[in-house]
Each structure stands twice: as structure tokens, then as C-alpha cells.
């Protein structure tokens, strides 16, 4: 084919849009489309990981924290709507008498939406800036994020009455009066999700093409030099980390809508690390690759877990090793070679 790098990228974005907007909705029935929707939720996080890890070298193994946050925020709203005017069922089972104060705001859709987009911003930024200011190494950062996600899981499970504990929150029925359980409802959610996702991928691509995108790469490869060019690299890193946090939060909210269920396992280390693999398989330097990777790995997971449950972990572990060892830039690299795109 022989394309330039820029052409190759536009080709990829167009292909993705075609796939998500045209091919899949036409070819797949409601059950499969819903599965796609679930994995697309993960791909939001994967895009964030491409930005933060692929381009800036920040490996966070705790994206589940923000993913879970978005998911629980949406879940709380949906649950309150489904249970109104009574308390959510799991609270009743745990003899909780009154709605916990921090649930109150989530009876409003506006607040829920705002919190999904806005709450991660100060949290992620302050956390990241404080840490990066201290020049903590990438490894330490990764370990701290794992530890934090594990802690949050423990906290969540511990407060069974208020968070649904290990069972999570489920049994949603409507969103602002629209049915979200039937096929039509799920399809509508799919369109919203794809719209959001394609917006996110486009914005991410634009960001990467700006001077800021080059800065990210510079920080990843030579942070010292960037500082000596007068940049506050902690600010740059904290910024991109915050972007990926917001993306993860949005993904979590979409997941709640698509899957109809949120559990503490979404927050934990296992999910967080798996999310990194979705990005790695697709290609840590490719935004489109991240989405495709999430879909591919996600489907493999569903297939294997159903038919050969014992082999899923072997496959996943093998995937980790394979991607890191043999294909560091993921499938996207393979595609580039096949289509002979100039790097």
C-alpha cells in the first residue's frame, strides 16, 4: 500500500469509525452488540493508557480506581432511580436505615454526569503532581497505584451496606425514564457510547499531533533534558495522567450502562492490569489500536471463559509475555508493516 504515517493514521481512524458505526451494528444481534459495548467501555481506559503510558511512559496499574469510580457513580444514579422511592435493596438487606449522605447527590443526573467527568480531575491531578514532583521512579508509581487500587477494593467490600460490598450494585431498569434493559435501549446506549468514544479518539489524536504530543514523547525518553529546556515535567505528566483518569471514568460509566452491574473487582488490581494489556495488545502507541485491542482481547476472554475456563489465565498470561517480548508496539505495528506505512 505504501502510506505515509499520517495517511496511515487517518486510514485507521476511518476504519474504526466504519467498524463501530456501520459494520458491527449491522452484522451483530443485540446480545453480541451488547458485548461489544462492554468491551468498548474498556477501550476508553485503553486509550487513556496509550496516552499516558505509550506516549509519556507513565504506567498506572490502578486505572481501575477511576474506572470503578465512573461505574459506581452511574450505578448509584441508576440504582436510586430503579429503587425509588425506597432504599436500594442491598441497603435494606444490610439494615441500613437511611440513605448515606454521599449517595444523595446521585439522585440527580446532572450531578452524576458532572461527577463522572469532573471529580477525577482534582483527584488524579493532585495525586499525580504531588508524586511526580518528587521524581519518584516509574516503578514506584506503578506499585503505588496497584496498592491504592487494592486498598480501595478492601474499603469498598468492607462497607457492604453502603456500597453493595462484594456483590456490587445491580438491577437497574431505567435511565431518566428510558428503558435500558430491552434491546432498543441497549442499542441507544451503544450509539451514545460510540459517539463518545470516537470523539475521545479524535481528540486524543489531535492532542498527540500538537506540540504537546511531542513533549510527551520527550518527557518519556529524556525527562531531564525537558526540565532543562524549562518545562515543569511534573505538570505535563500530571496533566496527561488526569486526561487518562477522566477517560477511565467515562468508560466506567458506560460499562455500568452496558453491563448492568458494577462490582469491586472493576476497581481492583486484576482489572487494572488487564486494562494495560488491552492497550498493549492493540499497540501502546496507537489510539485506534487500543480500541481494537480491547475488543479482540475482550472477545477472546468471553470465548475462553465460557468454553475453556481453565485456559483463560494461561492465555492472558501468555498474552502479557508475548506482547511485551515479541510485539512491544502491539498489533498496530503488525498492521503498519503489512500495509507498509512509513514510520
Amino acid at each position, binding site marked *: 500500500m505504501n502510506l505515509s504515517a499520517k495517511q496511515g493514521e487517518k486510514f485507521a481512524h476511518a476504519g474504526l469509525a466504519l467498524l463501530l458505526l456501520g459494520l458491527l451494528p449491522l452484522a451483530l444481534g443485540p446480545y453480541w452488540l451488547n458485548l461489544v459495548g462492554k468491551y468498548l467501555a474498556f477501550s476508553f481506559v485503553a486509550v487513556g493508557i496509550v496516552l499516558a503510558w505509550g506516549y509519556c511512559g507513565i504506567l498506572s496499574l490502578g486505572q481501575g480506581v477511576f474506572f470503578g469510580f465512573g461505574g459506581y457513580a452511574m450505578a448509584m444514579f441508576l440504582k436510586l432511580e430503579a429503587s425509588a422511592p425506597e432504599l436500594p435493596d442491598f441497603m435494606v438487606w444490610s439494615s441500613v436505615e437511611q440513605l448515606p449522605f454521599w449517595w444523595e447527590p446521585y439522585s440527580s443526573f446532572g450531578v452524576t454526569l458532572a461527577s463522572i467527568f469532573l471529580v477525577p480531575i482534582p483527584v488524579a491531578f493532585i495525586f499525580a503532581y504531588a508524586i511526580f514532583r518528587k521524581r519518584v521512579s516509574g516503578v514506584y508509581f506503578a506499585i503505588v497505584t496497584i496498592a491504592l487500587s487494592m486498598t480501595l477494593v478492601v474499603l469498598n467490600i468492607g462497607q457492604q451496606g453502603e456500597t453493595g460490598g462484594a456483590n456490587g450494585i445491580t438491577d437497574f431498569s431505567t435511565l431518566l425514564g428510558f428503558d435500558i434493559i430491552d434491546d432498543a435501549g441497549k442499542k441507544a446506549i451503544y450509539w451514545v457510547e460510540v459517539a463518545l468514544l470516537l470523539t475521545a479518539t479524535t481528540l486524543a489524536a489531535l492532542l498527540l499531533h500538537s506540540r504537546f504530543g511531542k*513533549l510527551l*514523547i520527550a518527557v518519556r525518553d529524556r525527562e531531564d*533534558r525537558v526540565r532543562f*529546556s524549562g*518545562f*515543569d515535567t511534573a505538570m505535563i505528566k500530571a496533566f496527561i495522567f488526569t486526561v487518562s483518569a477522566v477517560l477511565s471514568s467515562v468508560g466506567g460509566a458506560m460499562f455500568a450502562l452496558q453491563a448492568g452491574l458494577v462490582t469491586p473487582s472493576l476497581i481492583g488490581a486484576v482489572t487494572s492490569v488487564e486494562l494495560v494489556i488491552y492497550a498493549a495488545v492493540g499497540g501502546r502507541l496507537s489510539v485506534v489500536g487500543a480500541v481494537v485491542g480491547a475488543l479482540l482481547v475482550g472477545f477472546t476472554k468471553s470465548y475462553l471463559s465460557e468454553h475453556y475456563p481453565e485456559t483463560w489465565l494461561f492465555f492472558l498470561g501468555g498474552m502479557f509475555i508475548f506482547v511485551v517480548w515479541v510485539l512491544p508496539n502491539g498489533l498496530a505495528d503488525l498492521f503498519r508493516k503489512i500495509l507498509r506505512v512509513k514510520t
Partner: protein
Amino acid sequence: MDNALVTTHFAVASQRPESIAASQPVNAKSTLMNGKILSIEALTVSFDGFKAVDGLDMSIDENELRVVIGPNGAGKTTLLDMICGKTKPTSGSIRFRGTELSKLSDYQIVRLGVGRKFQTPSIYEDLTVAENLEISIPQVHGVWASIFFRRTKEVRERIAYVAEEIMLKDHLRMKSGKLSHGQKQWLEIGMLLMQDSDLMLLDEPVAGMSPREREETAELLKRIANGKSLVVIEHDMDFVRSIAKKVTVLHQGRLLSEGSVEEVQNDPRVIEVYLGH
């Protein structure tokens, strides 16, 4: 922090083809410091008891080109590390036009006008020569400014201008990783020029260069010394002689001798240190 500032900045600079110096506002503080751009007092840094720099007193005048020499381990690189903020001194003070540097972060010091060139060329190997220079544009250091930055004509002209000074005009689109060692050194100097630093710290700028390249570098340094202050660490005495007016000799973290090249070369203490041990 926005493009308008960048444009005006370069517009002024492009009116002065004979030197790369941008407009130099008369700095009130520099008169306070008696025309000294850098003033170091009792500077000491100790690593687990070992004093790499010990009670050093030194000063650099505005628009001076000072060369610092000394045997290995004399503390020369550590001195530069402390000035540019890479290492924090244990005690003492470093004043740049009246501002105390030892309390600031490295990137803040850069924004004040201090630029550092490292011993081993420290450039962005994955980016092209033009991109390397572009990243060094001052006043576009914020995140938002970087996102919305546009490569205007002024920017392009400035890059071309600096590229010509550092003799890399024909290599603008080349990935900088592919340059020769000497060219990488020049690129790094070019990045400092783009940054428009008033004080440039150059650590062994001709290390690993051929004699021809050394000559060219000497010419380059003499050109850019117009309107800027330079501190150069070097070992090659021929090179030193070709550019230096005043030389500072360090030994074991302390000032050993200071003066013109001849004075220093004839100083018995210097002779002993270089030849005696």
C-alpha cells in the same frame, strides 16, 4: 505564554542579524551585583561526607566568557550541576542577577535564563533537528500553550536562523539520532540558543570532536558570546586558549587559581597539580 508573545519576541530578535541575542533589558539587579551575572559564595556540597565542592567563591561578569579547568574530580561538573539546579548544594549561595538559585527547581532556573549543555549530548534522538529546536522555544512552557501552539512563520524563521548558526541548516528534517557526535553537540548548543539563555553553561563542548570541528565550535562560541555570558568546562588547552579571556582553575572542589590563560599556565600551584601528582 501564548503565540503573540512568541511572535513579538522573535520579531525583535530578527532585527539583529549580527548577534543571536534578543533584546537585553537593562536589569536593575545586575547593576546591584556590579555587572556580575553570577555570584557564588562559600558554595559547598557534600555526598555522604565527601566534599565535591568545598567553600567555593567565584563570580562571572555580564557578557563574560569564562573557562573552567581542573583535573578530573575537581568538582567542575558538580559546580555546573548546582548552578543549573540538578544538585542541591549543602551550603553556600549562588546568585544569578540577584536571585538565589539554590532554592529553585531546575526548570525554574532555566526560565530565569540559565541554559546547560551536558557532557554527553543530551538531545531528543527520536525527534528531528527542527523539532529539537522547536521544543526549546521559551515562553511556551505551559501545557495549554503547548497544545495550541502553531508553528508560525516567525517560529520557522527563528529555527532556520539558529540552525544556520550551528551549521545544521541542511539537516533540519533529519532525525537527530542520526547526526554525528560533533553535530549533536552543536544541536544542543542550538537548543540553548533557541532558549535564549543569558547564561550558558557548557560542559566539555568539544569532547570527541575532530580538530576541524573544534575550530568551528570555537568560532561558534565566540559568535554567541556577544551579548551572553558563558561558562565553559574544557580540557583541551588549545581550544581553551582560542576562546578564553579569563580562566578559573578548580582543584579538589576549591578555587586554585584564576586569571588569564598565561597567568594560570605559569602559576606554580597549577603546574604542581597538573604535573606533580
